[in-house]
C-alpha cells in the first residue's frame, strides 16, 4: 500500500508531479499517461530543442536536487563532458531511497513510472547518454515490478529504443535493484555498486560527469528531480519558477511529507517554500494529547528544529540558515513524550551501521558516539560523555571525512545536544572511569 497522498485538488498547472495520481492508487499506465500529455515533452524536445537549449531551460527553471543535496540540476547537466571524442555516457536515477523517514520517491515510482521514464529520456538527451539505470532500493519490490512493466510498455511503443518516439535518438533504461546500503545514496558509491564494486564513495574530481560509471560521463539525479523534467520542457522555465512565487527562490513544487506523531502521516505536493506548519496541518496536526517537541526537516541526516521554527519556508537556503538542512523535505515529527536521547541513539546506530568503512572518522568515530548514546539512554553515562560526543560530532564534520555520510550523521547529534542537553545530562550516573576498569567478556563483539 502506497503512502497517503493528502487529498487536494490537483491539476497539471499547479501539481506537475502528482496531478496524474489516481484515487484508486493504481499505477498510471502508458495509455492513461499519454492521454494526459505524457511523453509530449519528449516529442517536443526531440523536435524543437537542442541539448544545450534544454540545459539552459533546466538552469533557468532552477530545479535544485531533490535527493537532499540541493545542487542545481541544470548546472550539473551543463558540467557533463560532451562533444568530440567523448563517449556517450549514462543517466543514473538515484532511487535508493533509504533516508530515514523518507518515502516520496516510492510514490512517484509506484504510481507514475512513466513520469520517471520520461524524465530520464529528457536527462539522457540533455547529457548525450546512451543508457539509463534506475538504481532502486531493493526493498521497493512493488516499485520494481511497476517500473519493469512500464519499461516494457515504453519499449513496445517505441518510446525507448533505437529511435525514441521515432526521432533520431536512441536511449534505453535498465532497472537495477540495490542490495541495501544507505551509502548507495551517495552518487559515487552508487556508481561503484552499480559496477559491482564495494559501495565506497569515490574521490572527486573526477566528477561523475567527467568519469562516472565504467569511466564514462554519468549524471546521477534523484527520482523527484528527474520527474520535474517533463513539465519544464512542456511549460517552460518561467512557469516552473512562478510555481513557488514569492515564497522561495527555488523553483517549482516539492513533494513534501510528514511522519511521526501526527494524526495522518503522508505526502503532499506543495510549491517550494511551504512551511512546516502547513505540512503538519495537512497531516491533521499532532496526535491527540501530544505536543510538538522537535522536528527533523528532511530525514535522519538533518538537524533537529524546534516548534519555534515551524513557520520557516521549507527551502534549501532558509532551513540551512536555521542550522539544519532541507534534506528530502519529509518531516519527522517528535512529540513531547519521546526521548531525544533514544531517537539520537537510534539514528547514530543506523549511521554507524551504514558507514561504508572507508574513512576512519566515520568508520570508528560513529560507533563510539552510538555506544556513548546507548550508555546515556540506559542511564549509565559518565561525566565527560557529553563533551566527548561534542568533540566527536565536531570531528565528524564537513571536510574531515571522505564523503558527506558522517557530517550527515553528526548533524542530528550536534543539534540534539544543542537543544536538549539536559536530556543527555540526565543519562549520566557515573564519574569518569578508567577505560576497561571492568573486564571485557571474552568473545563479545
Amino acid at each position: 500500500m502506497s503512502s497517503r497522498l493528502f487529498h487536494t485538488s490537483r491539476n497539471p498547472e499547479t501539481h506537475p508531479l502528482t496531478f496524474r495520481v489516481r484515487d484508486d492508487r493504481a499505477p498510471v499506465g502508458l495509455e492513461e499517461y499519454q492521454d494526459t500529455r505524457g511523453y509530449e515533452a519528449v516529442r517536443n524536445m526531440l523536435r524543437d530543442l537542442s541539448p544545450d537549449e534544454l540545459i539552459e531551460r533546466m538552469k533557468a527553471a532552477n530545479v535544485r536536487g531533490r535527493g537532499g543535496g540541493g545542487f542545481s540540476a541544470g548546472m550539473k547537466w551543463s558540467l557533463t563532458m560532451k562533444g568530440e571524442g567523448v563517449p556517450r555516457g549514462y543517466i543514473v536515477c538515484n532511487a535508493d531511497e533509504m533516508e530515514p523517514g523518507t518515502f516520496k520517491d516510492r510514490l512517484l515510482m509506484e504510481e507514475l513510472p512513466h513520469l520517471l521514464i520520461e524524465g530520464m529520456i529528457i536527462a539522457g538527451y540533455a547529457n548525450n547518454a546512451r543508457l539509463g539505470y534506475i538504481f532502486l532500493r531493493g526493498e521497493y519490490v512493488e516499485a520494481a515490478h511497476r517500473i519493469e512493466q512500464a519499461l516494457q510498455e515504453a519499449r513496445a511503443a517505441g518510446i525507448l529504443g533505437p529511435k525514441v518516439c521515432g526521432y533520431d535518438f536512441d536511449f534505453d533504461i535498465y532497472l537495477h535493484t540495490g542490495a541495501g546500503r544507505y551509502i548507495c545514496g551517495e552518487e559515487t558509491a552508487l556508481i561503484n555498486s552499480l559496477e559491482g564494486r564495494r559501495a565506497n564513495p569515490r574521490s572527486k574530481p573526477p566528477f561523475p560527469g567527467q568519469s562516472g560509471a565504467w569511466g564514462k560521463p554519468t549524471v546521477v539525479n534523484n527520482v523527484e528531480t528527474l520527474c520535474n523534467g517533463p513539465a519544464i520542457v512542456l511549460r517552460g522555465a518561467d512557469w516552473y519558477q512562478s510555481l513557488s512565487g514569492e515564497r522561495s527562490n527555488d523553483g517549482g513544487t516539492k513533494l513534501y511529507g510528514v511522519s511521526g506523531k501526527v494524526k495522518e502521516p503522508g505526502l503532499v505536493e506543495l510549491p517550494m517554500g511551504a512551511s512546516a506548519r502547513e505540512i503538519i496541518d495537512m497531516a491533521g496536526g499532532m496526535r491527540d494529547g501530544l505536543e510538538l517537541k522537535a522536528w527533523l526537516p528532511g530525514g535522519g541526516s538533518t538537524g533537529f528544529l524546534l516548534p519555534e521554527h515551524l513557520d520557516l519556508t521549507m527551502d534549501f537556503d532558509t532551513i540551512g540558515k536555521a542550522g539544519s538542512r532541507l534534506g528530502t523535505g519529509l518531516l519527522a515529527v517528535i512529540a513531547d513524550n519521546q526521548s531525544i536521547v533514544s531517537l539520537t541513539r537510534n539514528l547514530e546506530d543506523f549511521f554507524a551501521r551504514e558507514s561504508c568503512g572507508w574513512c576512519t572518522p566515520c568508520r570508528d568515530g560513529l560507533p563510539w558516539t552510538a555506544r556513548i548514546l546507548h550508555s546515556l539512554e540506559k542511564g549509565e553515562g559518565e561525566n565527560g560523555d557529553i563533551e566527548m560526543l561534542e568533540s566527536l560530532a565536531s570531528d565528524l564534520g564537513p571536510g574531515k571525512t571522505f564523503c558527506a555520510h558522517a557530517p550527515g550523521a553528526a548533524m542530528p547529534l550536534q543539534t540534539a545536544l544543542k537543544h536538549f542537553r539536559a536530556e543527555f545530562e540526565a543519562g549520566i550516573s557515573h564519574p569518569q572511569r578508567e577505560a576497561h576498569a571492568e573486564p571485557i567478556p571474552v568473545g563479545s563483539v
Partner: protein
Amino acid sequence: MATIHVDGKDYEVDGSDNLLHACLSLGLDIPYFCWHPAMGSVGACRQCAVKQYKDADDTRGTLVMSCMAPVKDDAYISIEDDEAKDFRASVIEWLMTNHPHDCPVCEEGGHCHLQDMTVMTGHDRRRYRFAKRTHRNQNLGPFIGHEMNRCITCYRCVRFYKDYAGGEDLGAFGAHENIYFGRTTDGTLENEFSGNLTEVCPTGVFTDQTHSEHYTRKWDMQFAPSICHGCSSGCNISPGERYGDVRRIENRYNGEVNHYFLCDRGRFGYGYVNRADRPRQPVMRVDSDDERRDELLDVGGALDHSAERLKKAQRVIGIGSPRASLESNHVLRELVGAEHFSTGIAQQEYENLQLMLEIQREGALPTPSMREIEDHDAVIVLGEDLMQTAARVALAVRQAANGRAQDLAAEIGIPAWNANAVNTLAQGRQYPVFLATLTETRMDDLARERFHGSAEEIARLGFAVAHALDDSAPAVEGLDEATQTLVSTIAEALMTAERPLIISGGSMGSREVIQAAANLARALRQRDRRGSLTLVSGEANSTGLAMLGGHSLDWALDSLGEGDAVVVLENDLYARADAERVDRALGAAECVVCADHQSTPTWLRADIGLPVATFAEGDGTLVSHEGRAQRFFQVYDPSYYRPNDLTHESWRWLHALHTTMEARRVDWTQLDEVTEDCAEHHPQLAGIRDAAPSASFRIKGQKLAREPHRYSGRTAMRANISVSEPRAPQDADSAFTFSMEGYNGYAEPRSQVAFAWAPGWNSPQAWNKFQDEVGGHLTGSDPGNRLFEPEPDNRLEYFTAVPGRFEQRDDAWRVARLPHLFGSDEMSARAEPIQQRMSAPYVALSEGDARRLGVDVGTELTFTIGSHRLTLPLRISSELRDGVLGVPALPTMPAAVNHEWAHLGEETKA
C-alpha cells in the same frame, strides 16, 4: 617547481606532488597510513590532516588531507596548527579503539608504523571504554601470518595485492567498523608478491611467518646491505641475523631496481643459509676397507691436503658458478689459469648468455633498469615466463601496463598520485602487453594478446613482427592467417607506442628466440622508435660470468681425464648436467675439491670439501641482467657464535689454496684487493670497482654500523661459550662494523644502508629519510654501477636464421622445460617454506594430446627422454601446444632436459 610556506618557513618543492609527499620529502613529519609512495593517495585514513590557508592573511584556514591536496605554488599550510594536531590525535584515537594493544607479543613491535604514528601524534591515553570488535584469523599459507584484530583498516593490503600486484585472492569484506581483509576461505595467498604485505601493512596484521619461526625484534638483529641471489634481477635486500641465523629478509630500497617490493622467492627463500646439514668444517674423504670415511680437517689441514693433491695433478680444471661472486670466480680463474677455467654453465646456456651480452652491448636498443621498465607503453615478451624466472620484472611490467591509467588521468588534469581517481578513470584500460610463451602464465590477465607455441614458433612470431616493422628484416615464410593477424596487431601497437619494451631471455634455451628479440629491437630502431630491450639471464651472476668469460661446463666435463684435478666452486654439477656424465667426469679426475655452502651431490662426491660463505657470511659482486654490478655485504661472522665454524668466503679459501700451492704469502687480505685485481684483468668489468664504496669508506670518520643502537644482549650472547665477551669481529672487507658502533644515520648522503631507521621512524617507512625525494633515489645515489653503456653500439645486423616450422611428430613429444618460481632456483628450493609451495613433479600435455592418448589429469605417464625414464602424473594444460611435453624445472627432475624428443613408454601405450 613551486614554493610552499609551511609553519612560517618557505620551501621549494616539486609542483606535481601532493602536500604530504612534498612535506615528507622535505624531511617534515606528517603522520599517515593509507598513503604509500608507490601506491599514491586515497584519502581513507584521514591521518595526514594539515591546515591550509587561502593566503598569507588568512588566519582561520581549513583542514585538508595533505595526501589529497595538490601542491600549489604559494600555498600556506601549517602542520603544527592546534586544530590539525587535535584532529590527527583523534584519528589515532579512533584507529586504536579496536586495536588489541598487544605490542609485547606482536611481531610488528619495534618496527611498527602504527606505533610510530601513535607516538608522533602524542596519543597516550585510552578514553574509549567499550568492548573491542574481534575477528577470526585465517591460515594464509607458509609465508604470511594473519592477525586481523590488529587491523586499522587502511586498505593498503588490498590496494597493494589487487591493484598493484594483480592478486585476486585477498579482499576487503564487510562494512562499517567490521571490515575484514582476508581470503574468502582459509588458504595460501596465491600472489607471488604476498610477502610485501608484511611491509605494506602498517601494523601486525600480515607478518612474515618464516620470521616467526625464529623471531627477533628489529633492534636485536644485525643487518647488511645485500643482493638477492634468487634470480638475475638483482633486487636489493636487507637480511637480518641473530645468533648466527638469518632471521628474515626485508626489502632494501633501491630507486633504480626493486624500490619497495620483492618477490616471495627472494623474501622467503633464505632458509638454505640456516640448514642444519650445511658443511661448516672442511672435510676429506678417506678410503679405507671399501668404505669412504669423512675426516674433518682444520683450515691448515684442508689447505695442505688440497694443495698437495692439486700439485700432483697434471692439470687443474676450475669450475666456477653463476651463483658465486665475481671475486670468487676470478680467484678460481687465477688459481687454475684462464685456459682451465670453466664458468660452470652448460654449453647451450652459456652460448645464449654470450649472445644476450652481445645484443645488450652491440644491439639496437638500451637495457632499461627495473624501475625504467615501469615507464614503457607497450611490452612484448618473447618466450620468457617472467613470473617464474624473474618475478620482480613481471611486477614492473604490470606497472608499465597500468601506466596507461595515469596517462589517461593526466589528460584531464588528474595527478598520477590520486590513485582511486586514476583507477576510476582508467576502468582497467592498460597499455598493451603481448605474451608469447610456451603455455599459460601467471601474467595472462595482463596480456592484450597471448601466443602459445614451441620455441621455434615463438621465434618465428618475433622474426615476423620485426619484418612487419621493417621490410629489410628477414621475412618468415608460411605463417598461418591467425598468426599473421597477430603479427600485424603487435607491429602496429609497437609502432604506435612511444616507448616500446621487448623482453626475452634464456629460460627457453632457444637461440632463435633471443635473436628474434634482437631483430625486433633493430627493426624498431630502424623505424626511429625509442624503446628498450630486457634480456633475462637466469641466475644471480649469470651476466657477470658471461662477462668474465671462460669455458662452458660441457668443456670441463668432456676434458676431465686421467691426471686431472678439478676445483668446483659453489656449483652442484648434478643440477646442470646428466648424473652419469658428471659421475664419469668426476670419476676420471684424480682429485675433486668442492667449495660450497650446501651439502649437494657434488659436495658429497668430492674428495675434499671446503665450507664456504653464503651471501650472508661473505661479500662479493654480482652483475644483474641489467648489467648492474652490485655488492652484497657479509651480514655476520659465523665463527663468532660457533668457534668451530670454519666457513670462509670462497675467494679466501681459493686464494689461500693458490698461495699454499705456490708456497708464498697471500696477496689479498681484503675483498677490495680481489675486486681491484678482477677489474684490472678484465676491462669489461672495470666498473665493478664502483659497485660500492671500498672498505676505507667512512662517514664523519666512522665506519657504518650493522646493528641498531638498541641492539641488546651483546655481552651475554656468547656466555654459553665464555663469560668474557670477546672483541667484536673485525671486518677488513667492508666499511661496515659487526657492531652498533658506527654511523647509522641519514643526515649524511647514504647509498649502502644496512637497515633503515630514523628517530621516530622504526618501520620500513623510515626509507623516506634516506631518499632524495620520497620514492625517488637514495641520497647517496642508488646502489650499483651499470657496466653497459647507456646506449648500445647498434652494430649488430639482423639475424637471418629464421627457424622452420615446428614439425609435430606422432610418436614423440618435444620436451620443453617449464620454470617454477618455487623450485627452479636451486638454493631457495632448499628452504623449507619454499618447499611447501613447490609443485610436485609432473609432466604436462596439451588437451588435444591427452584426448588423443585417452589419458586424464593425474594419470601416471611414463616417458623416455634420452637415457631418462620418467613416470609422473599428468597435468593437462589448456594452452600448451600439441606435440610438446612440458617438464618442470624442479629439484627432483633430471637436469639439462630440454628440446629432446620424449617417447611414450610401452606400458602407457598399453
